[in-house]
């Protein structure tokens, strides 16, 4: 199967946004279910209309059950999980009833590589609805790099004319003033125990 480009949640949502306010936005995301909560939070945080986000586990559900869950309500954003190990018949039945899954809120299919393979093979109409909106999720970008950490530490040293070691020594003696910069500095040094 084709390898899909890897994206952070932010990038995925940016691309969906670029596609416009499509009432039938169906998106497939390949990722670990460990990250689905994080993605849901990111989706909720970026939603312009403050639409609610639901994670729906479809394990053991029939297509009619899934339809009922998607339509009540039909206007929030839903992330479907639990597709792993579903039978060819399940996918075919879901595919035949795909129009019953249509809703005004966005619909995300959260899949493993195997799940995506099954969807593409056994549910061609759903795949057609999804189109090119298939992404591999790699988590949240934005962690401070070691280079950024060094730059921040250097700026703090310059401003307060004190070395990292001097700050730690003063903090251990409880001789630093309660300033947000000193908290930032100590945490950057991994000395949160002194805060």
């Amino acid at each position, binding site marked *: 199967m084709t390898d899909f480009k890897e994206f952070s949640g932010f990038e995925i949502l940016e691309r969906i946004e670029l596609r416009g306010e499509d009432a039938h936005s169906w998106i497939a995301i390949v990722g670990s279910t460990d990250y689905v909560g994080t993605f849901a939070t990111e989706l909720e945080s*970026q939603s312009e209309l403050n639409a609610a986000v639901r994670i729906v586990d479809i394990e053991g559900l029939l297509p009619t059950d899934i339809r009922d869950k998607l339509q009540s309500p039909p206007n929030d954003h839903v992330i479907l999980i639990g597709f792993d190990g579903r039978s060819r018949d399940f996918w075919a039945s879901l595919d035949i009833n795909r129009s019953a899954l249509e809703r005004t809120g966005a619909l995300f299919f959260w899949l493993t590589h195997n799940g995506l393979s099954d969807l593409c093979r056994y549910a061609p109409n759903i795949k057609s609805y999804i189109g090119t909106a298939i992404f591999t999720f790699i988590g949240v970008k934005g962690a401070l790099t070691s280079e950024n950490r060094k730059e921040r530490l250097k700026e703090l040293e310059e401003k307060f004319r004190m070395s990292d070691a001097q700050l730690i020594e003063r903090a251990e003696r409880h001789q630093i003033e309660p300033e947000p910069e000193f908290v*930032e500095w100590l945490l950057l040094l991994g000395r949160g125990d002194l805060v």
Partner: protein
Amino acid sequence: MSTISDARKLARDLDAQLGTLTRSIEGSALAFFLRIRGYLLKQDRRIGSKQNLEQIVQYDKGPGDKFQIFLGPPIDKGQNESFFNFPSGARLSFSIALREHDGRCDILSYRFHFHFPNNHSPEFVRIDLLDKSHPDPLAEPLAHIHPGIHSIRLPCPPLDPIEVLDRVFFVLDPNTRP
């Protein structure tokens, strides 16, 4: 007549009250980071500032239960692309320190530095929350605003960082004023 001793006593009492108002936020620190970035993204779209938010908003999960969120440099030494730059010419930088516990996070401290466009008086407004009370809360209250002068700190309630950002985007930015 109130003496400076009286003023210091009142300031200590106020600091004690402010300390009871410091905020705790439901959810993980990473979830809060995503909320802050999502908030900035919506403001970015609203005012058309076209910031690269995935690059300029950063987090740092240190050892233990501490977590920091950053926008821009720790010291404002002049405009560059690491700030949230407003179409008005203003710029924003901040850092927020959090402690995670039991599915929540306490706000340890923060600093929000809003720099007005050039030739604006005052030059900046800074909103700070300290991690603990200062020995002289009359001079440096637990939560305070610098009204464009680094050495002057006026008390304010400890705000949720989202509430601070509301004041930045809907009150301080010159383009948002009526």
